[in-house]
Every structure is written in structure tokens, then in C-alpha cells.
């Protein structure tokens, strides 16, 4: 059990880094798809389609096993983190795009009419609302990616699943050990989803209720 728990910080580190990169890349890609010109739009669309259209494990194998032939090599931990980060960026981009577009255009026009630049209007008016609107979907994505850290075991990162596999082979107690692994994932995902739910409630805009997509007026 302690050996399994030793994998938790590793899994969490992959997850936190990947999700953080995903927020930054995802927002940038979403911005390109909503406001960008033709070239940024097609770049972002191509990125999203490519990473959503291929399994993350294939992406990871490509990075870990494929790239060294170009002279680029990473440790298993870094390769796994990059793969999951690039993959979640594509999904987050789509969620951010939807939530940016759900903020009524009139508010953006009103901000511009006051003399805000496009960037000021986006940062002060659109983004704060888009981030609130995206939370339910983003929570879902966060939980999916937390579980996806388990694929890192295939290239030998000593996270939870890898450790369970190893212990299982040594003791042949597969039933107990994978049950424990499942419990650990369950606890982690529950904590994350509860925390994000609380955040969502806390940030809800009074009068609009939680999860309201697009209010009237």
C-alpha cells in the first residue's frame, strides 16, 4: 500500500503540469479559432483535429519511441507529461471555444464601445465569464486526464498503475492490489471533482444560477 501511494505524487505531478499547459495552450488555440485570422484558425483547427483524432497512447509512444530517431529524446516521465499535455490542450481548446462563444457578443461590443482594446475587452469581460462557463466541462476533462496518467505505466513511469502491476507480479495478489489502485484513483478523482464543484458554486454569478449557458437580455 505505501508503495502504491508512492505513485500518487508522480501521477499528480504529471496531471498538474499537463492540465496547466492545457489551460494555456487550450486558451491560445481557442482564441485563434474564435478571433484569429485564417491562418491561426486553420492551425488551431488542424491541431485540435489531429490530437482529438489520435489515441493519446499513440502520441506518447511517438514522442518516447519515435522522436529519438530525430535525435530528440525525453525521459519516460517527461514524454508522458508532454503527450498528456498536448492531448488535453486539444480538448480544452474546444471547451474554451464553446464557452468564449457563449458570452453574449453584445457585452464585447459594449466593452469596445467604451474604448477598451480587443485584448482589454477579452481579458476583463469575456474571459472571466468564459472561465466560469467552462468549469463543468473542464472538471470532466480534469478527471479524465487524471485517470489517463495511468498510461504512463506503458513506458515505465513509476506512477500508481505501474507500481500496482509490479507488486501484482511479485505477489500474485492481483485482486487486492488492483482493487487498492482503483480505490486510490477513486479517492483522487472524488477530491478533484468535489473541489471543482465547490469552486463552480463559489464563482456562480448571482441571479444566473449554476451552469446557465446564456442568460436572456
Amino acid at each position: 500500500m505505501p508503495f502504491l501511494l508512492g505513485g500518487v505524487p508522480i501521477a499528480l505531478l504529471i496531471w498538474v503540469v499537463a492540465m496547466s499547459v492545457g489551460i494555456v495552450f487550450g486558451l491560445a488555440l481557442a482564441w485563434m479559432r474564435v478571433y484569429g485570422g485564417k491562418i491561426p484558425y486553420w492551425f488551431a483547427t488542424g491541431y485540435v483535429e489531429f490530437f482529438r483524432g489520435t489515441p493519446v497512447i499513440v502520441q506518447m509512444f511517438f514522442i518516447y519511441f519515435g522522436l529519438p530517431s530525430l535525435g530528440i529524446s525525453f525521459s519516460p516521465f517527461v514524454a508522458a507529461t508532454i503527450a498528456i499535455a498536448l492531448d488535453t490542450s486539444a480538448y480544452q481548446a474546444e471547451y474554451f471555444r464553446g464557452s468564449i462563444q457563449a458570452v453574449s457578443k453584445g457585452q464585447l461590443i459594449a466593452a469596445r464601445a467604451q474604448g477598451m482594446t480587443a485584448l482589454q475587452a477579452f481579458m476583463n469581460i469575456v474571459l472571466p465569464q468564459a472561465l466560469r462557463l467552462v468549469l463543468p466541462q473542464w472538471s470532466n476533462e480534469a478527471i479524465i486526464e487524471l485517470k489517463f496518467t495511468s498510461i504512463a505505466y506503458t513506458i515505465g513511469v513509476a506512477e500508481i498503475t505501474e507500481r500496482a502491476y509490479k507488486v501484482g507480479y511479485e505477489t500474485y495478489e492481483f485482486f487486492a492490489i488492483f482493487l487498492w489502485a482503483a480505490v486510490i484513483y477513486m479517492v483522487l478523482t472524488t477530491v478533484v471533482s468535489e473541489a471543482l464543484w465547490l469552486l463552480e458554486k463559489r464563482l456562480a454569478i448571482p441571479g444566473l444560477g449554476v451552469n446557465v449557458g446564456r442568460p436572456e437580455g
Partner: protein
Amino acid sequence: MSEILTIDNLWKSYDSEQVLCGISMSLKKGETKVLVGPSGSGKSTLLRCVNRLTAPDGGLVKLAGVEVGEGNVNEIRRRIGFVFQDFNLFLHLTAIENVYVAPVKIKRESKPVARRKAMALLDRVGLADKADAYPAQLSGGQQQRVSIARALSMEPEVMLFDEPTSALDPELTQEVVKVMSDLADDGMTMLVVSHEMGFARDAADEVLFMEKGVIVECGPPEKIFGRPDNVRTKAFLRLISEA
């Protein structure tokens, strides 16, 4: 009195439809002018061309002698308040935050100073007690009054109103009209698209009747509403007074 807003030979078309056909008009400091006319006559487009929310195809707009163009558009917009038909308040901000967000973010005013000014503006539109309410918690009339306070927050030289009461129930219309009348009395320069005859009669120095992209007739409200020269003006006014 000096001309503060000059519109000279403004043209605009959408696709093949000509919306503005060489509109010229001007506003002196402290004047209020009301634009009336059937829908599709180009009134809203004219307002949007003034602060370049819509770029005109030809002609020019000057604010206090300075030509409005792509280069100075943000600078000019800060000096022109705009009130929308459907309020467009920022939904994630309280009433008072809606009013002070622009001075804080654009003019870099300190929050306490901006907040104090915003409170004074909310008081002016009769909503000091709703400072901490969110837009979704306010009635339409209250939202529109907050949006007027928001438009005033940048201390504009001219205020543009684009059908500010069209989205409101009749009983809520009056509270907005009152705020606008007070503003006109206080010497604000205003260009208003509205069919509120009461407001036009009380507050307008001039009423302009617009149709198919041209100003058909203009004059003091008592003349336009009392004995208009143009047959189309007559027909239109009969229509809206029956409504």
C-alpha cells in the same frame, strides 16, 4: 456655441443595400437631437458609424474637430458614451463594477476613486441602493439606468442612445426617460434614436426624421410633431402615435 460632433456626407451599405446615403448633421455642445424614422431607415447604423462600431464606407465624423478613424478609434470611443437597446451590461460584474470597470482598466484610475465616482453616477440614475446587485437581479429599466451610468463613467463629451427604451415595458420606460431628460437638462450633448415622443418634445432641440438612409426633414419638435411639411413624416408620425 461650438460644434462638438460633425457628421459629414456619411455613406454606408451592407451588401447591395444602401443604408446611409450621404448623411450630414452636427451637434453643438449641450444640444440634444432625436432621430426618428421607420425601422431599417439607418438610424442605428448612423449612431454606430459615429463611434465606428460600424466603419462607414465614405464621409467623415469629427469629434471636437478631430476626425474619427481607425487609428484613434479607442481614444474617441472613450469620449463618446453609448447606450444600447438591450443594455449589454457585463453579467459577471455588479452594478457598481459595471460602472467603474472602464475607468479602472482604461484610465488606470485607482479603485477607491473610481468606486466613489461610480457611486455618484448610480445615485444620479437613482440606483445607489442597487450598487451591489448583479444585472440578472435587476429589472430591465434598472439595467438600462446602470448602463447609462456606465456610459457616463468615462466622462464623455457626447452620449449616443440607440433605442434605449425599445426593449422595456411601458412602465419601465418612464424611469429611463426621466434619467435621459435630467441628463439633457444638465447640459449633456446627446444624439438619441428613440420613438419616445414625450422625451423628444421635452428634451430635444431638434427632431430629425430619417427614411431610407436620408434625413427627410428636421426641425424643432413642435414643428415636426405639430405640422410637418413632408407627407412621409406625417404618415410615419401618425403611425407611431397610434401605436
